């Protein structure tokens, strides 16, 4: 596995490997010295064209805990704003010989483009409304910690699906892990033809009671202005997850940050059914696992700089 561009390209086996690896890193986080030297001397570049405190800091810390050097380029105040093209920016950053580039962009397909322009491994930290694979993986990891397996689970994703890369990636990820998914939201915010991906669609919460997990999405203010939804009030009345609608056995998830009182009522956010805090915690170890899986192992097939082409590793184990 050289890149992580989307859940679409991940096999079940690759997902399981990452999730297992994340488990190991959870133990590292409990030590006094929360660092391992695995990626020492490697450089990881975070290229963020969209502001994001939580995802960026999660990736930065993940790389640092693996002892890598980290360079973060944010869109505000960089040459990116001066109109430098994505291609030129990637070429400039390649001077650092990065082992990996983590990219977040407001445009679909950005990560894939970058992968064609660099020797580094590319991790998609969100490309437009297309995919957000690391979020989906950490969501699966979090859920598995509570339910052991996703096989046969009934998961409802509620909210603005049309504009949500989290929804798309999670839909694919949950299905790959054996769950069935229902997308629920206002008709204007459920993409036409999304059933082709094998999910159910609902325009109201009547059937929510049958779900094992409720995954709520952020409802953004901008949607009012574009005539998707008449008002936040109507949205909350029809789609807000509160203690009446959320059954005691149902788990609650949200990618954050939460709009309190809009998509979630305050009392459910802090309830014992809520996995929201666990999701944030999982983000770090899952991202460490992703970096580990992409950057270790000879399937990267790139000879070390300055040395002769890689020797065939001897099978005898050093001890």
């Amino acid at each position, binding site marked *: 596995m050289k890149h992580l561009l989307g859940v679409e390209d991940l096999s079940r086996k690759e997902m399981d490997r990452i999730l*297992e690896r994340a488990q190991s890193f959870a133990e590292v986080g409990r030590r006094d010295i929360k660092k391992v030297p*695995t990626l020492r001397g490697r450089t990881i570049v975070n290229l963020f064209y969209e502001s994001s405190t939580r995802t960026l800091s999660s990736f930065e810390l993940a790389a640092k805990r693996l002892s890598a050097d980290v360079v973060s380029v944010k869109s505000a105040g960089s040459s990116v704003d001066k109109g430098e093209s994505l291609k030129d920016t990637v070429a400039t950053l390649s001077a650092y010989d990065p082992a990996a580039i983590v990219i977040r962009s407001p445009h679909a397909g950005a990560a894939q483009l970058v992968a064609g322009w660099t020797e580094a491994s590319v991790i998609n930290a969100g490309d437009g409304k297309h995919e957000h694979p690391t979020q989906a993986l950490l969501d699966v990891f979090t859920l598995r910690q509570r339910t052991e397996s996703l096989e046969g689970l009934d998961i409802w994703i509620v909210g603005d699906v049309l504009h949500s890369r989290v929804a798309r990636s999670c839909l694919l990820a949950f299905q790959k892990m054996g769950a069935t998914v229902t997308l629920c939201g206002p008709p204007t915010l459920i993409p036409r033809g999304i059933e082709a991906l094998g999910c159910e669609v609902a325009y109201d919460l009547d059937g929510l009671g049958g779900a094992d997990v409720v995954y709520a999405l952020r409802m953004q203010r901008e949607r009012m202005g574009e005539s998707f939804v008449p008002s936040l009030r109507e949205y909350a009345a029809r789609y807000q997850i509160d203690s009446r609608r959320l059954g005691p056995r149902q788990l609650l998830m949200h990618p954050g940050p939460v709009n309190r009182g809009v998509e979630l009522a305050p009392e459910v956010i802090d309830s014992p059914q809520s996995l929201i805090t666990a999701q944030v915690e999982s983000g770090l170890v899952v991202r460490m696992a992703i970096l580990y899986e992409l950057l*270790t*192992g*000879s*399937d*990267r097939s790139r000879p070390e700089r300055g040395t002769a082409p890689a020797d065939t590793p001897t099978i*005898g*184990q050093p*001890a």
Partner: protein
Amino acid sequence: MSGEKVVLDHDDLRRTLVRIAHEIVEKNEESDRLALVGIHTRGAVINRRLHALVSELSGTEVPLGDIDISFYRDDIERREPRDAPVVHDSHLDFDLSGRTVVLVDDVLYTGRTVRAAIDALFDYGRPARVQLAVLADRGHRELPIRPDYVGKNLPTAPGERVNVRLEETDGVDEVAITPAAAAATTGEDT
């Protein structure tokens, strides 16, 4: 397995561990400062047996731990993906300061695994001293690492493979050597 030669059988193994346990207790008079830490995978298994023996001999409950060194390896970029080792959780739930930690592994070869284990250990704390106990020493050191306790010295050629099998993991207790040509086919982890 073709051409394999068993150099330690079930009884040899048991006697060897008993002897090592005695040596550890003799060398460390103040056994209340002692701790035993096994290196995954088989080092940890051997360590559990050793721990039982040492605790009995010393009459005290000696702390037991295990560490996985996958994240500390120095050959990380050159491993074949299919050889990707199973990464185990490490468990070191006691304070290391002031202790004499005996690292336990099955086979000592180049010394790189032990170096990685020492690095890992020091990420958990600062032991007073570290000793090394191994079931077999096959020579060909690439680092200045020497064992304090050795079960058996096994001179080997570099191409040969030393196979340690334990009842808990492999259903049988034995140490065998596979000659060079046959050894090239499998990738067993130490």
